[in-house]
């Protein structure tokens, strides 16, 4: 890590920033997960779209509305004064893929949240991260009333790589979310180590 020497005086610390993405289908609990660990209320940033959404977003009956807004929720965890982790909830709708690229650039890893009642909703996210070799962990959000499946069954249903961790979690619980995030970082480390090895030997 390269730190630029601060200009004379007491310049504020320049933190190292890292990001982890939170992906998954619509309503699977992405924002809840971000909110459970974030030290700030999940903020949202917005990007205006004009042309891209036109065929899809029905703006009939809303006179004067020519743009649609896509929002990304994000939270912040200050681990140390000089080390800050950001969590970004990806926009749920498939047609905002181009924003995913932007979010995924430089990301440490990702959590794919899954709901066993509609597992197919997270296929797209799994595909996306597999194809770009971004380390990810599948977090099965245990909704009340949903049947619990062992993680191996989920792994099989999603046809995941054997090394991809599948963990059961509760997106509302801080402790549970912390564990998932730790799994992401550990998985990223393992992948990083494996990638370095062939070069070294």
């Amino acid at each position, binding site marked *: *890590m390269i730190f*630029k020497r601060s200009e004379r005086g007491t310049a504020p610390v320049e933190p*190292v*920033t890292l990001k982890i993405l939170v992906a998954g289908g619509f309503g699977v609990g992405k924002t809840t997960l971000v909110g459970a660990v974030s030290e700030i209320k999940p903020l949202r940033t917005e990007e205006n779209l004009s042309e891209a959404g036109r065929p899809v977003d029905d703006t009939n009956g809303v006179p004067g509305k020519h743009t649609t807004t896509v929002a990304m929720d994000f939270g912040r965890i200050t681990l140390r004064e000089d080390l800050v*982790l950001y969590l970004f909830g990806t926009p749920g709708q498939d047609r905002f893929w181009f924003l995913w690229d932007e979010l995924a*650039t430089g990301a*440490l890893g990702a959590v794919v949240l899954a709901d066993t009642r509609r597992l197919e909703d997270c296929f797209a996210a799994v595909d996306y991260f597999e194809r770009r070799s971004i380390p990810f962990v599948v977090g099965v959000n245990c909704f009340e009333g949903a049947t619990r499946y062992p993680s191996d069954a989920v792994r099989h249903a999603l046809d995941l790589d054997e090394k991809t961790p599948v963990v059961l979690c509760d997106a509302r619980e801080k402790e549970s979310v912390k564990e998932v*995030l730790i799994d992401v970082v550990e998985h990223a480390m393992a992948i990083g180590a494996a990638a370095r090895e062939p070069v070294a030997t």
Partner: protein
Amino acid sequence: MSDDDGQAALPHWFDDDAGPVVRPYAMTRGRTTSPAQHRLDLIAVVIAESRAEETEADQTLSPEHVDIVGLCRDTPQSVAELAAELDLPIGVVRVLIGDLVDDRLVHVTRPVPPAELPDESILRDVINGLRAL
């Protein structure tokens, strides 16, 4: 997508929900990219320079520019936080930050370059930091 607790507090402006009165890219005079900083990462950190004290008096800056410098003066802010704080689209904030970098009022730190994992010791620090939360 309005705030959940929006009903409790009276909205600041009447008819706020209808959206901004000024179209976002009017603030950048129509520019959608900044030549110098065209791909600012969302988590790139913006830091005010020490000479950024007299921004209020600077007639060449827009109020949004002044706001950005003001927010960064005390604590460095990520691009995403600035956008959320100012309630402006990311694209607009990027252009404005580009202007400020050109004027040497702020500088931006690069996050870890894409396709490159941060140092293992940093990852270990992240894990320990998360455990300690």
